[in-house]
């Protein structure tokens, strides 16, 4: 864990064959001072990293992902004047990741508006190891449909109340996760974002092997609990 921590305390960048150490504080200082080298350091540190996350974790098409990452870094430049370190050097990384998450969320909403969100759920994986029942599949479809509808019902300007309405449609996920055991929650949340089993093992105290074996079962249990929120589907 200390290794991970050090990684964002000091970023090692290879510039012209020389290893340069650029801390997040240094990048922020450069950007606030209007120093153009801050742009290069920011790009070196985040462009590939965020691109990889957008493409491989959130399945954003490469072309859109490149644009999305540009938007994130441009927002960093735009807002860095108001950014302040409060706890430590890692604050900047968490701030960038929050901007990134919001941009990916916007992309997901736009996909929903364009009608492409449901398609991304129509993958054969649902038929795989967990063997979900018809009702359970319908439950997932219903949540995605409701989410897409709530996104579509907005007027594009996204008033304050709309964001709350959209997230309400997904509240059932949080409620269901809360009913599960702590380690199961961690496993589901972290694996959805492709955090490796080794790291999850450290958080949960379970072995990697156990987590791998239980993952499919925990997913099945989650969907089963989720279905309880939709009794009308169970009856039909």
């Amino acid at each position, binding site marked *: 864990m200390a290794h*991970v921590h050090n990684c964002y305390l000091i970023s090692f960048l290879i510039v012209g064959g020389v290893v340069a150490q650029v801390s997040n504080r240094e990048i922020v200082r450069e950007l606030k001072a209007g120093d153009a080298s801050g742009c290069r350091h920011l790009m070196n540190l985040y462009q590939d990293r965020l691109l990889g996350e957008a493409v491989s974790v959130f399945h954003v098409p490469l072309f859109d992902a490149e644009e999305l990452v540009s938007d994130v870094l*441009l927002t960093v430049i735009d807002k860095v004047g108001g950014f302040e370190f409060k706890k430590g050097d890692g604050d900047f990384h968490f701030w960038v990741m929050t901007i990134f998450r919001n941009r990916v969320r916007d992309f997901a909403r736009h996909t929903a508006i364009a009608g492409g969100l449901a398609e991304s759920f129509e993958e054969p994986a649902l038929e795989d190891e967990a063997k979900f029942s018809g009702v359970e599949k319908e439950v997932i479809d219903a949540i995605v449909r409701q989410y897409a509808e709530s996104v579509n019902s907005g007027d594009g300007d996204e008033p304050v109340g709309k964001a709350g309405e959209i997230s309400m449609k997904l509240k059932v996920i949080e409620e269901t996760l809360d009913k599960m055991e702590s380690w199961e929650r961690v496993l589901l949340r972290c694996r959805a974002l492709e955090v490796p089993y080794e790291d999850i093992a450290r958080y949960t105290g379970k072995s990697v092997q156990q987590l791998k074996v239980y993952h499919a079962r925990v997913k099945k249990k989650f969907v089963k609990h989720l279905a309880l929120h939709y009794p009308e589907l169970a009856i039909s």
Partner: protein
Amino acid sequence: MKRNPVDRLIQLAYLEGIITTHGAYEKFVVARNPRAVATPTARAALLQRLEAALAGKAVEAAPLTVGVFLRKVRSEQSLRPQEIFARLGITQNIYRMLEEDRLSPLKVPATAWKKFGQLFDLSADALVEMVRRTHQLVFFQPAFRSTLARYDGRKNKAMKAATIEKATKELYTRAQLVLPPEEEKKLNALLRSIIQ
């Protein structure tokens, strides 16, 4: 690549801020080797955009002139010109020329500048700097205009003029323009009476 619908559902909840990994995911992003590499072209394009954005911010942060300040305040606070010039005790024409940075602050009495500072809650230093910048801008404007006029007979006139106009605006606000001693004297007299 196989996408699991349960994972996608949980991802949606994460993106909408319903659930969190308490920093586990964000920490792991640092440790994970990037799984995509941008092309050199994409890198160059992004760097150019970032540098342009940073340069744009520098211009924005440059000292304001009275005109830039008034336009900004009016648009941010949805004020009408008469709401301002009536309080400053100046005429509509004078106000309009001030807003367009076409009138030297020397033509406006010190009492109006004092009211200006009070109305917008400006510190004496900020007001003095703004008045000084504006006077420099107005004083040097004819010299820049004559430079611009030299482009009149050339190709792509509109494009060149727009570029130069933009550059001169930046120059007005950022450059250290030295006034002739007589102008400096007049300006200092006004500034002294404003801060008195």
